[in-house]
């Protein structure tokens, strides 16, 4: 059993949770993920590690309550436990030597993963421009944290209710066209956002790293559910990734494959609602 030692609601749908998991905390690095299972009947769900504390032996994740399992996890409180937590899985993000200036881009809950990347780079002395995009003001998360570890933070909302109006790609394009020279771009967020960021950086040949979130089952290199096409070849996000060179990823295929159970989730949603008296 893995005890929840911290829980914080970052917005209506996004929750931060830290678990007591000393062995995982000892090894975790930015870019890796864990697999959790709430109870004996739950799914195995991957979540990228948002933070870790080796001394306290804790691992932190930030998740959006979108499916049956994340909703169920979100209903637990500090002091409760979940039955399974496996990790740290995947390959830690590899930073090229000699990086001077990097643009880190987070979309929505993806900011939870972009943040530790930016923090790590910032700590390495790299100049970090952070572009964070949200649908609207109400769902902004981690603003203070992101500001603290970036040279410049650009907040963007789709409806202009906070920061600048527009997608993150608008700002990125503006910065690049304005003469900013980035050694690399790291983009983490919805698949469509990562795809569009890659389209912005491609003509400039800026190396663009993306963190992919395909459907997984075991997460340890056994089932092959998380396969993605990268440079025309099959890669497995759980053991080869989850980071890949965005210019080589077939995002359209990933988007289609990620939607396979969408109807089922909708159906399951109605079940969850009844079960928890509409709370979930």
């Amino acid at each position, binding site marked *: 059993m893995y005890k929840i030692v911290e829980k914080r609601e970052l917005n209506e749908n996004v929750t931060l949770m830290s678990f007591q998991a000393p*062995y*995982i905390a000892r*090894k975790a690095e930015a870019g890796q993920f864990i697999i959790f*299972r709430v109870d004996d*009947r*739950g*799914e*195995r769900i991957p979540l990228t590690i948002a933070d870790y504390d080796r001394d306290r032996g804790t691992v932190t994740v930030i998740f959006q309550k979108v499916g*049956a*399992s994340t909703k169920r996890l979100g209903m637990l409180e500090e002091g409760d436990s979940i*039955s*399974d*937590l*496996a*990790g*740290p*899985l995947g390959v830690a993000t590899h930073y090229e030597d000699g990086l001077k200036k990097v643009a880190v881009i987070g979309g929505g809950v993806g900011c939870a993963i972009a943040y530790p990347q930016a923090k790590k780079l910032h700590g390495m002395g790299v100049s970090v421009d952070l572009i964070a995009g949200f649908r609207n003001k109400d769902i902004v998360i981690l603003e203070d944290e992101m500001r603290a570890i970036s040279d410049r933070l650009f907040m963007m909302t789709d409806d202009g209710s906070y920061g600048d109006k527009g997608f993150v790609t608008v700002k990125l394009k503006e910065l690049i066209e304005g003469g900013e020279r980035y050694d690399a771009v790291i983009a983490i967020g919805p698949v469509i956002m990562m795809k569009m960021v890659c389209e912005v950086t491609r003509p400039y040949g800026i190396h663009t790293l993306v963190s992919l979130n395909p459907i997984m*089952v*075991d997460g*340890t*290199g*056994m*089932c*092959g*559910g998380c*396969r993605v*096409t990268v440079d025309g070849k*099959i890669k*497995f996000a759980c*053991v080869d990734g989850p980071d890949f060179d965005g210019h080589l990823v*077939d995002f*359209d*295929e990933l988007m*289609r*494959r990620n*939607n*396979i*159970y969408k109807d*089922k*989730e909708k159906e*399951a949603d109605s079940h969850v609602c009844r079960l928890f008296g509409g709370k979930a």
Partner: protein
Amino acid sequence: MPNMSNKKVPMPHQDAKVRAHNYDEVALGYTPEMAVEEAKRCLNCKHKPCVSGCPVHVPIPGFIEQVASGNFEKAYEILTSANALPAVCGRVCPQETQCESKCVRGIKGESVGIGRLERFVADWYMQNCETHVRKPQSNGHKVAVVGGGPAGLTCAGDLAKLGYQVTIFEAFHTAGGVLMYGIPEFRLPKRIVSKEIDNLKALGVDIETNMVIGKILSVDELFDMGYEAVFIGSGAGLPRFMGIEGEGLVGVYSANEYLTRVNLMKAYLDEYDTPIKDSRRVAVVGGGNVAMDAARSALRLGAEKVYIVYRRSMEEIPARAEEVQHAQEEGVEFQLLRNPVRILGDENGNVTGIECVEMELGEPDASGRRSPVEKTGSNFALDVDTVIMAIGTSPNPLIRSTTKGLETNRRGCLVVDESMMTSREGVYAGGDAVTGAATVILAMGAGKTAAESIDAFLKNK
């Protein structure tokens, strides 16, 4: 007086039409009367050819002799002296190519039903006897076993019986490996696997789940923690795909994923959250046991039509004869001498069909099997909404990529000597991690040999 019937006592089965829609076990097992009758067919040959066909050398005529005289408990003792998982092996071993292929009775008629008798003895014991597992006195030496599948369970059990303190590090949330995630409930009920695992725990084996060795701990760290030897039984690994067009379409599964969703994650039960596609028409590519398991699972999940697409003929099909027969009885259609060339999809990226080409058998290849050759222009399409690839696996990279000095071959399998020791002293390996995708019993045989070698290694240290 031996029973001189040329045929085995028939195994009672669930009716094919009924069982194709449920997850209950297909073969129902012998009654005591049937078992005694079948056991009497054994001639108790002096030279025991059957034993030489068994990877773990079960004293076959010895236990069958006890069955014939109704001493089932004694039979169980003899059986388990060599095989830690008899209820499993009786159900999933390919007896027709192992023990039963050497049986003298098989020369003229059917061999003795060794597998059926093994299963009977194990089941009878489970139902009628209290398990008296006694925890042996500890010898103070610690051994780590990586992976709780057939190889690891066998190795752990044998070492625990010798007094070693054994810890199994299991990556998933439950031990059992392929017995849990791969082989379906209707062929191997999970309560039987759980029971075998409980027996190991009673022997004092500690099972740590959610421990992905290579990630959370390295093999070197296991030694630092005081383990004096390590056995790696990390199993199969990443599924292979054909590299044909359309494998990224929605509705293409690897058999590993499909079966894991069904078996380990219980997608067939409403009370579990795991989703799986509601397939109507399914093509399973491959001819092994895994392909049969996937095809028969798809039927049970409600598919109207399920094809096996296999590039050679029925003579070369690698699955156990019984699995092929069961699949046929349940209505799986075999498309033999057919090979997929691409998977077809609609504008939304969903599978709509699979284009195949007819094959004919040419000259024997290196494996001795006649290699299939395409018949030009014989392409045709099967109308399916789901394709399941069951064409094998390549070994999991997590351990070899994080352990220095572990030699692997060109396919990525760990290299071991005849004692199952890898290129690193004190590190042993066996099962699919060494052989590539193979059978449960071969993995168990490797686990057994490794346990003997580890014992010898630590005694001489």
